[in-house]
C-alpha cells in the first residue's frame, strides 16, 4: 500500500517538476490563433457580432466563448475560412446578428451636415474628415460600411449607399450548378 503511494507520488512529482519547468522555460505569450482569426475577419468593426470590434470577437472565438457564425459582414466566406482554420464544420450565419448584405459606404449630405463631429467620434476607422462646425466628408475608399456613424447623426444626413462597381471589379458570375433541377 505504502509502496504504491510512494511510487506513484514520486512519479507524479517528477512529472510535476518537468512540467513546471517546461511551463516557464517554454512559455509563449501571444496566442497566435487570435491573430489568425483576426486576419480573417472583415475588419468592418461594426460590432454586430456583439463584440466591440473584430479583434475582441477574434479573442472570444479563440477562447471558445463565441461561435464562428456571428459576423454578418463576413458572411459565408468568413465562416468557411474560420471553419477551415479551426477545423470545425461550417454552419450558416446566425441570423440573430444580422444578414449578409452587399457592401455599402457612408455618404454625408454636405448640404445638411451641421459639423457636430458626432459621426467622427463614432467611426471606428477614422475615415470621416472635418472639424467642428464644418461639413464632414467620408473617405470612400476607407469606409468599411459599418453604419456606426448613422445613428449618432442629429440631422440624419448620412446615407449608406452601395459601393460603385468599376469594370475592373466585375467578377464572372458563377455558372448555373449542373445539378439544378430542370423543370
Amino acid at each position, binding site marked *: 500500500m505504502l509502496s504504491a503511494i510512494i511510487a506513484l507520488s514520486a512519479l507524479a512529482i517528477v512529472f510535476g517538476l518537468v512540467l513546471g519547468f517546461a511551463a516557464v522555460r517554454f512559455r509563449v505569450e501571444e496566442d497566435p490563433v487570435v491573430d489568425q482569426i483576426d486576419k480573417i475577419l472583415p475588419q468592418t468593426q461594426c460590432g454586430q457580432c456583439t463584440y466591440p470590434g473584430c479583434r475582441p470577437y477574434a479573442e472570444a472565438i479563440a477562447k471558445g466563448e463565441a461561435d464562428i457564425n456571428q459576423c454578418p459582414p463576413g458572411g459565408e466566406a468568413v465562416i468557411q475560412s474560420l471553419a477551415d482554420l479551426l477545423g470545425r464544420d461550417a454552419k450558416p450565419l446566425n441570423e440573430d446578428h444580422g444578414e449578409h448584405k452587399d457592401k455599402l459606404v457612408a455618404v454625408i449630405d454636405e448640404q445638411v451636415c451641421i459639423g457636430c463631429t458626432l459621426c467622427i467620434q463614432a467611426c471606428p476607422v477614422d475615415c470621416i*474628415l472635418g472639424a467642428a462646425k464644418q461639413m464632414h466628408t467620408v473617405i470612400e475608399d476607407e469606409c*468599411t460600411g459599418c453604419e456606426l456613424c448613422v445613428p449618432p447623426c442629429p440631422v440624419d444626413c448620412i446615407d449608406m449607399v452601395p459601393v460603385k462597381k468599376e469594370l475592373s471589379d466585375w467578377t464572372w458570375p458563377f455558372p448555373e450548378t*449542373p445539378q439544378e433541377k430542370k423543370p
Partner: protein
Amino acid sequence: MTTHKLWRFPGGLVLDGHKDMSMQDAVMIADLPPQLVLPLQQHIGEPAVAVVKPGDRVLKGQLIARAQDYVSASVHASSSGQVIAIEERPIPHPSGQNATCIVIETDGEDRWDPDKTPSGDYQTLDASELRNIIRDAGIVGLGGAGFPSFIKLNPGAGGSIDLLILNGAECEPYISCDAMLMQERPREVIDGLKIMRHALQAKYCLIGVEDNKPDAIVALRGALSADETKFIDVVTVPTRYPAGGEKQLIKVLTGKEVPSQRLPLDIGIVCHNVATAAAVHHAVTLGEPLVSRVVTITGENLEQPRNLEVRIGTPFSSVLQQCGWHPKSNDQLVMGGPMMGFAVTSDAIPVVKTTNCILALPAPQRPSPVAMPCIRCGECARVCPALLLPQQLYWYSWSKDLDKVQDHKLFDCIECGCCAYVCPSNIPLVQYFRFAKTEIWSQEKEKRKSDLARQRHEFRLERLEKEKQDKEERQRLKKEKLRKARGEKSETPDPKKAAIQAALDRVKARKEQQDSGARNVEHLTDAQRKAIAEVDERRKHLKTDPPATPSTDPQAESVTEKKTDEI
C-alpha cells in the same frame, strides 16, 4: 528556303476552320457610321482620360483621350466630327456593363488631322523615340489581349532580345482578318516588323502562320526582299488550336517553354500580332494613330461574311448590316472567335481596338445541353495546352475552394476553351475558371481593404488611449496647480521643475485647443490630405452660403495649420 524545325505543344485540338466563308471578298473599308462611340478603355490597364469636351470639333486621328498611366493607351478620333457626349454607353465587355465613352457625331468628311507627321526613316530614330511614337499612336496588341504594345517593345535589361515572333497563326475558327491582312498587305506587316525589330534590337524574326493559310504564306514570302530573308523567316506551323497562343507558338517555333507565370521576355523572346505590326508601320511611317482595324464579320447568320476595315467606334449593328444580317433575338452574337470570344447582349456596342471578329451564330440547334456532373474522364486534361487538370480546377472552382484551385495552377490557364469543347458532360469549364480568377482578385482587393481598416482601427484605438492619458495628465496638473494656488508651499520652488511645468502647460494648452477642434486630423497620410483638400475645393464650388466656410472659420484655419506643422 530551309525548312524550319518545328516542335509540338501539348494538348490542343484540330477544329473545323470555317475561314473560307469570310475570305471570298477582298478587305473593304466599312461605311462611315453617323455616330462613333469610343470607350476610354479598350486595353489592359488604366482607362485613358478624355481631353475633349462635348461640343468640341475633332478631326480624324486627333487625340481625344490621353493615356493616364504607364500601362494605358491613348484614344484617337477615328473620323472627323463633333463630340456630342461623354457618357456611359454599352461597351464590348462580358459583363454587359456600360462604361464611359466619347461619342462623336461624324460629319461625313472623314478629314485627317493635318498635324499628323510621318516620322521619316525609322532607322534614324532610337528605340525610346520609337516607343513614344507607338505609345502616342495608342497602339495596343491587336491579337486579342489589348496590352499596350510599346511596353512590349522594350527589350528589358539586356538591351536586345534574341527573337521577335510575329503571330500570324490565327488559330481560332471563323476568324480571317490576319490572314487577309497578310495576304493583301504583306509589306505593311513586314515593314512594321522591321520597325519593331529595330526597337527591340532583335537578332532574328519569325512569322508563324498556320498551314491552312497558304495564300498568306505565299504573299509574305513573296514580299520579302532577299536581304530581309536573312533575318526574317516565314514559318508554316501545323493547324492545331491554339497554335496562336503566344506560349504555344513559341514552343512550336523554338521548342522553348515560357516559364509558368512569366513573360516571353524572360527567355529573350517577344511576340506580336501581325496586325499590330501593320499598325506600327502606319504609326511610324505614316504618322497615323490606331483609328481602324481589319475585322472579320462572319457566321452562319450572315448573307455575306467578309472582312472589313472598320473605324474604331463603329457600332456592331452598322458593320453587321453591311454583311447582310437579319437579326433574330435568339441568335448568338459573339465578339472574337467561337473558342475565346465572349457573347454580347446588344448590337449597339462599338468595335474597339481588340475586336478582331464579330461572329453571328445561329441559336444552338438543340436547347443548350444540360450540364451534367463531371465524371472525371480526363478528356479535358488530355487537350489542355497548359497541361493543367481542368477537372480538378473545376471541382475546386465549383466548391469555391480558392486556395486549392490556385494550388492546381489556375493562373496558368490561358482560357483557350479546349477543355470545355471536349467535355462530354458539357460543363462550362472556362466560365468556372474565369469566375474563380476574378473572385480571387476581388478577394485580394477586399483583403487589402480590410488590412487597411485594421490598421486604421488600431491606430484610432491608440489615439483614443493617448488622449485618455493626456486628459488624466491634465487633470492631475490642474489639481496640482490648484493645490499650489492654495498656497501649499511645502517645497521650495525648483527652477528646473518650474521649467518642466511651463513646458507641460504649453503642451496642455495646445492639446486643449486641438481637442476643441476636429479630433482625427492628426497623422494623416498624403492621400488623405489630398482628399481633404479636394473636398474643401469641392465645397468652395458647391456652397454659396454655408454655415461655416473654411475661409471665414478661424478653427478651420487652425486645422490646416496643424496639418502642416504636426506631421
